């Protein structure tokens, strides 16, 4: 069921990291996915700050068993080419000139996506805690909503974990990307005040959200990319 999603989009979904130049280290902050052959990626705007140095780590797709944590990684520097904080999408550009392969017709839209459609998403949950393993999950599209900032989003029956923001949401029937993973419903509010073991309390639910891909496509067009 998710095999097509994996073959089309798993390799292009990467770990987004914050670079610490002084110590030459990096810190995983979320996920991103390749959106254009000229080396552009989309992610969620809330993951990044405009004054961050950013990079990506590309994890090979493998059918072998793999360790949780990779001992070392090649990091590609990226810069922010577009930023839409209100609609929670950001466009990144790999700084080293390169061309990357992307599937034809990779983007869908909300008009072709009905309630109850089976979707899948890809990301790297808990990469900041050493889980450097790509995660692929399924979710039913349960509603279409408008966020507090006016962004159109999909509501999903799944629990998205920290680190998965910025990954692609794919309509399994059409095989096309329809959203950028954004967050989950937090019953106690999005600014938790109680933490246990470093984890916020009262913020778990099996209701998650992805922002419609149209906002990402708008950033790509502003950057002069064909979509």
């Amino acid at each position, binding site marked *: 069921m998710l095999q097509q999603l994996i073959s089309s989009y798993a390799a292009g979904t990467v770990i987004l990291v914050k670079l610490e130049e002084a110590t030459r280290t990096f810190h995983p902050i979320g996920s991103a996915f390749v959106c254009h052959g000229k080396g552009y990626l989309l992610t969620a705007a809330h993951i990044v700050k405009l004054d961050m140095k950013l990079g990506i780590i590309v994890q090979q797709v493998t059918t072998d068993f793999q360790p949780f944590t990779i001992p070392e990684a090649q990091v590609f520097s990226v810069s922010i080419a577009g930023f839409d904080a209100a609609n929670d999408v950001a466009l990144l550009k790999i700084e080293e000139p390169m061309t990357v392969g992307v599937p034809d017709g990779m983007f869908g839209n909300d008009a072709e996506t009905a309630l109850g459609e089976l979707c899948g998403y890809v990301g790297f949950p808990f990469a900041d805690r050493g889980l450097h393993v790509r995660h692929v999950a399924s979710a039913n599209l349960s509603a279409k909503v408008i966020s507090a900032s006016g962004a159109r989003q999909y509501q999903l029956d799944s629990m998205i974990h*920290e680190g998965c923001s910025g990954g692609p949401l794919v309509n399994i029937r059409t095989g096309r990307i329809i959203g950028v993973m954004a967050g989950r419903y937090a019953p106690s509010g999005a600014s938790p005040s109680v933490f246990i073991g470093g984890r916020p309390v009262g913020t778990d639910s099996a209701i998650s959200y992805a922002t419609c891909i149209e906002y990402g496509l708008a950033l790509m067009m502003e950057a002069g990319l064909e979509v």
Partner: protein
Amino acid sequence: MKFDLTFDQIDIPSVINDVVPQSQRKAVAAVLTSDSFTEADVDAAGMRLLGDMPSASFILPTGAPLGPGLKKGNLFAHLKAEAYDLFCTNSDVYASERKDGTQTVKNLITILATAAGGTYSVSAAVFTGAATLVVMLVLKMGLNAYCKAHAPE
């Protein structure tokens, strides 16, 4: 530094449509097309555009915690500081722009956005909406009033 127009002479929707990226126009227009926008309105909109002020909601963003060493910066404050440097000082950074004499409003927005983008190695387009807000604020307050209000203590 001299402007080609006064605030009352500016066709604000035209400036917004010509300069500001589509994704930022609604937020910028919401402030600038109001008859009585204040500096507080500009600050709030500018901070939201640059991600300094996330929207309050029940959705928990699921990026990873940002890790050690994160400084909670205010990028919009930095942009206003750049505007002070450009409009109110004789610093070398903007010497050539001042030497060029009278500048168009659109040029000034581009100068400010480009400077901010260069500071953070980010596309200038990311800062254009916020730069538009700052330049219009300077024009509305008047250069002397803006400079006096934002002089370092």
